[in-house]
């Protein structure tokens, strides 16, 4: 009897394992459909709109996004927003894994540099097919261009930023500098950095003069790319091949110089620089405009000493930076879902929804004519930063390529390698990445 019982139990376990393997292997993503093409017609059926959004998990942004959901659902009672969440670093994998299992999200709140991943995956639908023509026509052309792959727009920006120079007016004043005259060139910055060098905080901690992220995080690569653009250099050609030049070399020589003079915290992530800036241990640094949210969450008084300035000019460059944004990537899951996604995107990207957010939560530059008045006072001094920003070619391996730029910056700083040798190593590694 015991043997029979044992066998029955084993059989049940085996069968349950087999059942686990069954699943819905035949389920496929909803057909792409013909696209809503702006569709003026509404749908009255109940629709659940899946929006992938890492920001929901970040305390500084939760309230805003819950407010967006409430406001949108009130306006469209037949549409329910279902958040799909994961931490910042995992949201792309979360969306892709879900799609691999046949569970497609409808909208993704994305970084600009994630767009190539979603395009490569075949998830992103061109905004030209999903949104109203007049809605798209209101965006600034250079901003939309930065979100294009092969001439089609795959990300719809909520707001944008370039690499803004944030500086601490109190430190400037204490160093005998004019707090209302930030540097405009790298030469001026170096002169000011020299004056700041050697200063300490009240509790004896060193004050760094200047900061740019170089730690191994993909977004650090965007900042380094921006420094190259400051010098009038190039990184990638339009066709996605490596196109480094003298401006590129000058940019990394500057990074090495800043490190040699110990003006710059080594191997820092953007959030490390925000912490130091908030604590008064960093005088000037490059950040996305919305990085100030991280600063003020550590030091609520930060707005009293923080000011922004245009990216610095170096060499033959005019101080252009890279354009960065938070954008919506849309997935075409059939007419009804596409219509709901369109309504959601066009609801959010309006002055009514974003004005307060851009002014009081996450300082950012407007991307559309009807949002021109949303520019926060803190960014007025650097209002042209996004206008002159240069789009980065959105190649599929952009994130890995950005990590390689970080390795190059680390080679000339923490490893103290010669710039030309480090660039030669970088070229080998980068070409392998870009070759796919």
């Amino acid at each position, binding site marked *: 009897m015991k043997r029979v019982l044992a066998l029955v139990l084993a059989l049940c376990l085996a069968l349950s394992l087999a059942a686990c393997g069954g699943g819905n292997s035949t389920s496929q993503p909803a057909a792409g459909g013909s696209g809503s093409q702006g569709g003026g017609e509404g749908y009255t059926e109940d629709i659940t709109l899946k929006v992938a959004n890492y920001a929901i998990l970040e305390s500084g942004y939760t309230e805003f996004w819950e407010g967006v959901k409430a406001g949108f659902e009130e306006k469209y009672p037949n549409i329910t927003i279902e958040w799909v969440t994961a931490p910042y670093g995992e949201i792309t994998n979360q969306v*892709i894994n879900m799609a691999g299992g046949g569970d497609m999200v409808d909208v993704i709140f994305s970084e600009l540099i994630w767009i190539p991943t979603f395009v490569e*995956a075949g998830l992103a639908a061109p905004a030209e097919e999903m949104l109203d023509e007049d809605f798209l026509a209101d965006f600034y052309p250079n901003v939309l261009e930065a979100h294009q792959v092969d001439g089609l727009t795959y990300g719809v920006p909520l707001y944008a930023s370039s690499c803004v120079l944030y500086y601490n007016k109190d430190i400037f004043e204490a160093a005998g500098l004019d707090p209302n005259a930030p540097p405009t060139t790298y030469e001026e910055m170096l002169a000011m950095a020299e004056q700041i060098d050697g200063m300490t905080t009240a509790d004896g901690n060193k004050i760094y003069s200047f900061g740019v992220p170089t730690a191994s995080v993909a977004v650090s690569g965007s900042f380094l790319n921006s420094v190259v653009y400051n010098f009038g250099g190039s990184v990638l050609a339009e066709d996605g091949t490596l196109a480094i030049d003298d401006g590129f070399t000058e940019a990394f020589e500057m990074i090495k110089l800043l490190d040699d003079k110990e003006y710059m915290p080594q191997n820092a992530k953007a959030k490390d620089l925000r912490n130091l800036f908030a*604590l008064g241990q960093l005088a000037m640094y490059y950040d996305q405009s919305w990085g100030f949210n991280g600063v003020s969450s550590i030091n609520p008084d930060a707005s009293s000493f923080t000011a922004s300035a245009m990216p610095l000019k170096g060499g033959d460059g005019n101080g252009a930076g890279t354009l960065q944004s938070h954008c919506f990537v849309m997935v075409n899951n059939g007419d009804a879902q596409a219509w709901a996604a369109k309504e959601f995107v066009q609801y959010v990207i309006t002055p009514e929804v974003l004005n307060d957010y851009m002014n009081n939560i996450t300082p950012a530059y407007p991307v559309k004519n009807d949002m021109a008045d949303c520019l926060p006072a803190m960014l007025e001094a650097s209002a042209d930063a996004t206008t002159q920003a240069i789009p980065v070619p959105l190649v599929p391996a952009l994130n890995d390529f950005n990590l390689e730029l970080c*390795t190059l910056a680390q080679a000339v700083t923490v490893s103290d390698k010669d710039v030309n040798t480090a660039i030669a190593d970088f070229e080998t590694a980068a070409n392998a990445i870009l070759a*796919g």
Partner: protein
Amino acid sequence: MSKASVPARRLKAATGDKLFSLGLLLPAILLTFVFILVPVIDSIIKSFTEYKIKNVISGQPGTWNNFENYIKLFQNDKLMPAIITTFIFVFAVVIAQFLIGFILAVILDSKIRGSRFLRSIMMMPWVVPTMISGMVWLWIYQPQYGLLRYLVQVVTGGSVLDFAILNNPNTALLGIGIAALWKQVPLTTLLLLAGLQSVPNDMLEAATVDGASTLRRFVSIVIPYMMSVIKVTVSMSIIENFKQFPLFWTMTGGGPDGSTTTLAILSYREAFVSNNLGSGAAVTTVWMLLMILVVFVYNKIFRAEPMD
């Protein structure tokens, strides 16, 4: 009853026993097949194909690419440094982990006051998720306001103000190794303590009566009796450190200047940063083969005979 029917009945009983055993093993066999063998074989097959995210989403199989993933891997000068870094990390951490674990196990076995309390407290790092451990150590190592920087400043009387273990390519691996030890030593200690407590007291007492020194008792009785536990503990440690990923990704992301890029980091970058799953699978296959080789060699060298 005829005599001929007895062997036949025995044969039948033996077959029945075998079938019964097979029936009981069936869930385990299925589990191993479905969740281990199939994914491993699938990954190996994908390593010979161009397989990207769009294949996952569309359900299209990868296309054979003439060993391109492996050729690229061996040509881009990243594989060998990653293998070397992985081996240095595994070798150093496993040895340190074993020595520290053994010393702690001996201390806890010596019935000092509060050893039971210490045993409970000591397990805390082990229950902390690895990702969280990485974040905690990242803060401890933070070069401008981290705890370690403060301690170094105090110990050196303020002469060293820029100690940044993770920012130096020569010390970054050490920094992660310390975090790995903090996380893994408790389990090693617990396993070795269990082994120590299984050494028969009567043997030790007999050796004491015969005049054997403490060292002699340790080498000739304790170690041989613990051999099977030591072998399992070290095997687990090798595997755990060979596949260590969260600490590396959280604390350095493979930097600075590639100094902490292990096979785990290389595999992740290929598969999930470059979104080239075929290439990532190629790294994983090399990684798996190396791990099998290391564990095989280890088992060959440290073949433990059970003590009677």
